[in-house]
């Protein structure tokens, strides 16, 4: 085993030192790490709010916090987790780091805009923090009018402004990825030779670019209404609050695909590498990523089933919502088919991938329950919805993110994480997650409404199980935080291709040089071609 004393060749981490070399970097890999630090911070802050929520819900009375404070807790939890953690997460960290390398480019098309994107996330986050410390927001992360525009006495504008700025961060990242994929591929890297992780980020970028501006203008209208009392959403003046909901969900539904598609891209990579088989149905998976991006824009009305939206519109949106499940299902079938007769190894990233496939399937199926008009009337605004979206966002996206982090950690840092602890935390996370969120399906079905601090005593047992699960889940996230940090100094040195994986990123050193490649590769083989790679190169 090589000791840390051996001289490391020059790479993107040690090519220059000092704060300025990081804060003014144009290197997509360094920007990815800047993002990584930032979103990790946001994740833990969002987690603190979740912790407070779950502690409050251990007892039926609203005894830890008042109802008003509870409203602020779930609002801040949602705002931070959605806009400042999940939306940037995989694209801004793993996408930023690996998309250029995977297509054989030296950097993204617009490196300075990439850095600007990070600064915009910081500024947006600072505004949201200001709102938090100044007293919080209590409108729910969905900002429904007229409460948010006319009645709430909390820091709506500051929070909305923070989200607005973070939205621009997202738009610019999407723009950068689209131009990079179209114009910066290495010779021989055709669209259909690109890794599926690139396809996933590309589809995500399309959504970012087309959807986020509508959120931006909606937030502008909310500021104007709050500041200037102009009444576009005010029923007393003839305004329609449902118009706000249409505008808000036009972005926020596709946003959930922004959050899950990159995760699906990671899973494609993991399932292939750890079965040592090309992904089954490459073309279908690529096509399904684009389909999800497109069809995802046609279903937002399913969030408005119980608003005064017309029943006829409800029928259209319900039908299309069933339709959008098809491409996701295709992916699950294809990943499963990839496993069949594969040479499967149960490394940590693969454990997370298995977790994703199972939990995303459950979450996705429960989405179909919600797409049904009649059933939605019964379970909307209950814990059923909460369980559904946490299954796909946490059981789905965050599992994929953890899998991706473990998979690419040796490449990004040149160090390996401790295997035993990693597998243990994957298991703890899986158990903790299910204990937290499965009871919530039952709670919701039995009628427990969401966003309530106090509840009838007959729901207490399920809530206690859920809160117990949350503490286990927290441990499952804390342990990796510790060992990843530990590994930076004490982890075993990793080689260029510890997993025997295909893909251009495994052909450079670990960590990669600043310019990614000494010579731009000329690509001659298809993606996931295992005949060209040795297994388990240390």
């Amino acid at each position, binding site marked *: 085993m090589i000791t840390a004393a051996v001289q490391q060749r020059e790479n993107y981490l040690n090519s220059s030192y000092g704060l300025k070399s990081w804060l003014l970097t144009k290197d997509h890999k360094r920007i990815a790490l800047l993002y990584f630090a930032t979103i990790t911070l946001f994740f833990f802050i969002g987690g603190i709010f979740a912790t407070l929520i779950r502690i409050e819900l251990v007892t039926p009375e609203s005894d830890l916090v008042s109802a008003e404070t509870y409203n602020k807790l779930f609002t801040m939890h949602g705002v931070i987790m959605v806009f400042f953690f999940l939306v940037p997460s995989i694209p801004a960290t793993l996408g930023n780091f690996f998309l250029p390398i995977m297509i054989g480019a030296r950097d993204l098309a617009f490196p300075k805009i990439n850095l600007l994107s990070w600064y915009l996330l910081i500024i947006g986050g600072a505004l949201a923090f200001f709102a938090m410390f100044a007293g919080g927001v209590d409108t729910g992360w969905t900002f429904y009018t007229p409460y948010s525009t006319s009645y709430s006495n909390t820091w709506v504008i500051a929070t909305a402004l923070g989200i607005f700025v973070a939205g621009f961060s997202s738009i610019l990242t999407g723009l950068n990825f689209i131009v990079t994929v179209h114009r910066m591929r290495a010779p021989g890297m055709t669209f259909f030779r690109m890794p599926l992780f690139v396809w996933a980020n590309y589809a995500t970028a399309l959504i970012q670019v087309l959807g986020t501006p509508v959120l931006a203008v909606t937030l502008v209208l909310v500021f104007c209404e709050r500041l200037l009392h102009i009444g576009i959403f005010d029923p007393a003046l003839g305004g329609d609050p449902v118009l706000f909901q249409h505008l808000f969900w036009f972005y926020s539904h596709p946003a959930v695909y922004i959050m899950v598609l990159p995760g699906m891209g990671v899973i494609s990579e993991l399932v292939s590498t750890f079965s040592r088989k090309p992904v089954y149905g490459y073309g279908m998976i690529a096509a399904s990523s684009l389909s999800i991006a497109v069809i995802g824009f046609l279903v937002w009305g399913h969030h408005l089933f119980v608003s005064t939206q017309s029943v006829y519109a409800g029928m259209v949106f319900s039908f299309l919502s069933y339709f959008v499940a098809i491409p996701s299902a295709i992916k699950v079938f294809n990943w499963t088919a990839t496993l069949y007769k594969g040479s499967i190894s149960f490394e940590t990233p693969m454990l997370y991938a298995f977790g994703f496939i199972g939990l995303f399937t459950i979450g996705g199926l429960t989405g179909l329950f919600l797409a049904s008009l009649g059933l939605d009337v019964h379970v909307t605004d209950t814990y059923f919805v909460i369980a559904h979206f946490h299954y796909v966002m946490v059981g789905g996206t965050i599992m994929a993110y953890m899998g991706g982090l473990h998979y690419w950690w040796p490449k990004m840092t040149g160090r390996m994480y401790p295997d035993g602890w990693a597998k243990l935390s994957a298991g703890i996370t899986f158990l903790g997650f299910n204990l937290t969120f499965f009871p919530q399906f039952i709670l919701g079905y039995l009628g427990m409404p969401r966003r309530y601090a106090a509840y009838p005593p007959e729901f207490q047992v399920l809530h206690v199980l859920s809160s117990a699960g949350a503490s286990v889940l927290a441990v499952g996230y804390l342990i990796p935080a510790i060992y990843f940090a530990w590994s930076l100094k004490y982890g075993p040195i990793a080689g260029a291709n510890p997993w025997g994986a295909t893909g251009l990123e495994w052909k450079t050193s670990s960590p990669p040089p600043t310019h990614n490649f000494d*010579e731009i590769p000329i690509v001659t083989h298809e993606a996931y071609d295992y005949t060209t790679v040795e297994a388990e190169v240390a």
Partner: protein
Amino acid sequence: MHSEEQTLALREQFDTAAQQRDASTLGMWIFLITEVMFFGGMFLAYSIYRGKYPDVFAVASSSLNVYIGAANTVVLLCSSFTMVMAVRASQLGKRSGIIFWLILTLILGMTFLGVKAFEWNEKFEMHHVPGMAGFHLDGVGTSQGPASIFFSLYFAMTGLHAMHMVVGVGILTMLIFQAKAGKFSAEYWTPVDISGLYWHFVDIVWIFLFPLLYLIDRHLK
């Protein structure tokens, strides 16, 4: 890998100047699509409310001065012409042509903004500003709420448009200084090209705003 030294026309992440030019143009077009969706949300709100309150909107629209609106539209179209002439000059590497046409565009853009400011001031004086005390539109009776929605959309849409013009004016100013400094040539004119795209886009938004705000059922007046 080409030499370490990078130029404006060929930054280090690109292999050829043509690739860089294509990437920059594509980037600007994608940005303009985001702007289409941004303004789009407001056009949606406008169309829903116009559909709901057609008569109130017609009366409110007629309180706007159509001749000033039309004249301002002509001003903006002239500025699009001068802008494309500036881009043409840059494509042909004619430095003085770039500067001349950009300055004209700047003057026309600022004229548009000046006229807009005058119109807004008129609205303030006529008590047509929603949210301010004393808001009242004659001719709609008790439908003051929907009338204030028209004016909210008027101010929001023309205001957002004006903000984009102000940014455009800033960009033009920068381009003029850069052109004076000899930054552009027949090999490298991309900033002028993509700024032109932006300017034309802002013009197109106005091409739609004018009939939708100023020309609702004018025959009724």
